[in-house]
């Protein structure tokens, strides 16, 4: 019996990428928090768990020449924090290394 493959090609229950619903799990959130004066902290949330966070952080620290650490949150999980505003650089890194697609990297803040 021939199976109807056409019907199986689209999963109707899969997340629709066009809806722009950022509550989905595959979004990487890049946020910024203001500190004193011109200083700021960049956080990267929801990085895929199969990555070695230490290695990624080390690369960030070296290439952006800043300090940073990995914080763990009860709800969000592991969060990479970087000193300074590195949102654009982090986004470029994530896209160039094909960790995520441009549509799935969300930059928050101003």
């Amino acid at each position, binding site marked *: 019996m021939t199976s109807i493959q056409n019907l199986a090609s689209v999963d109707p229950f899969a997340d629709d990428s*066009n*809806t*722009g*619903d*950022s*509550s989905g799990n595959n979004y990487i*959130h890049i*946020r*910024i*928090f*203001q*500190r004193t004066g011109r200083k700021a*902290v960049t*956080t990267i*949330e929801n990085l895929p768990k199969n990555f070695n966070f230490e290695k990624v952080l080390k690369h960030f620290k070296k290439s952006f020449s800043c300090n940073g*650490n990995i*914080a763990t*949150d009860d709800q*969000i999980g592991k*969060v990479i*924090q970087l000193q300074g505003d590195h949102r654009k650089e982090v986004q470029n890194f994530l896209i160039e290394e094909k960790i995520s697609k441009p549509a799935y990297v969300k930059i*928050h*803040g*101003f």
Partner: protein
Amino acid sequence: MSEAELVFDTSMKKKKKKSSGEQTAQTEEEKKKLKSKTLAMMNQQDEEDEQEEKRNKEEAAAAAAAAEGNEDAEEDFSNTDFGAKKKKKKSSSSKESSTKEEKETTSTATDKVIVEDGQLPWLGTDRDYKYSELTYRIYHLLQANNPDLISSEKRQMKPPKVLKDGTKKIIWANFAEICQILNRKPEHVLQYVFAELGTNGSVDGNERLVIRGRFNTSQIEVVIRHYIAEYVACRNCRSPNTTLERNNRLYFLCCNACNSKRSVAVIKKGMEGAGKKQAKE
């Protein structure tokens, strides 16, 4: 065969006669007619041209004024403007007229005309203007003078008024007004703004928003733009005429223009007080 030839011949003769005998009178008449016609047309055309040019100038000026406020426009919402002017009406009216014209063109003009820049095909000649040529000309001029007018209608937003309150706080003075324009509850906007900026604050007595941290007008503008893209504009028709409804603890964006409905993301704060907690512990 001979008959046919004869007939043919007679017709030829007749034609010749006509062409030779009546031509002079006819041509004179025709010329007169043509002249009067062309004169009338020229007058009309001149008037139209003047109006057109005026309109173009006005629109160009408005577009330029609008563009100033739109310098750091972002990907999705480049067609929202923070200039104070409104010219929605104008574009819609012009659109209507254009659609009318199009209807006429489909019936009258069948041949396509290719007009090169600055070269009007009727310049050296004495003939009437073709409709297709004129429509081409007006579209060309419009597009050349303000390219963003034809592609999409612009929607204006009031720019946020941001004042400084000391060195560590800012006051967003027309917060309530902007919420009203967007047709959203102030609480929802407030929640989003604080989540995006990673700060907190409060609404003071005059319905102004006090935000902790230092931000300027352009930064707040970007946040508003993101808010509009996420929670105000309809994804299908880009209309801002939408309402936010809450159903089973989920927010749905309902478009009043095209009746579409979509769910929107819940406002999520990032890791609160990132770094601060760690330092205290």
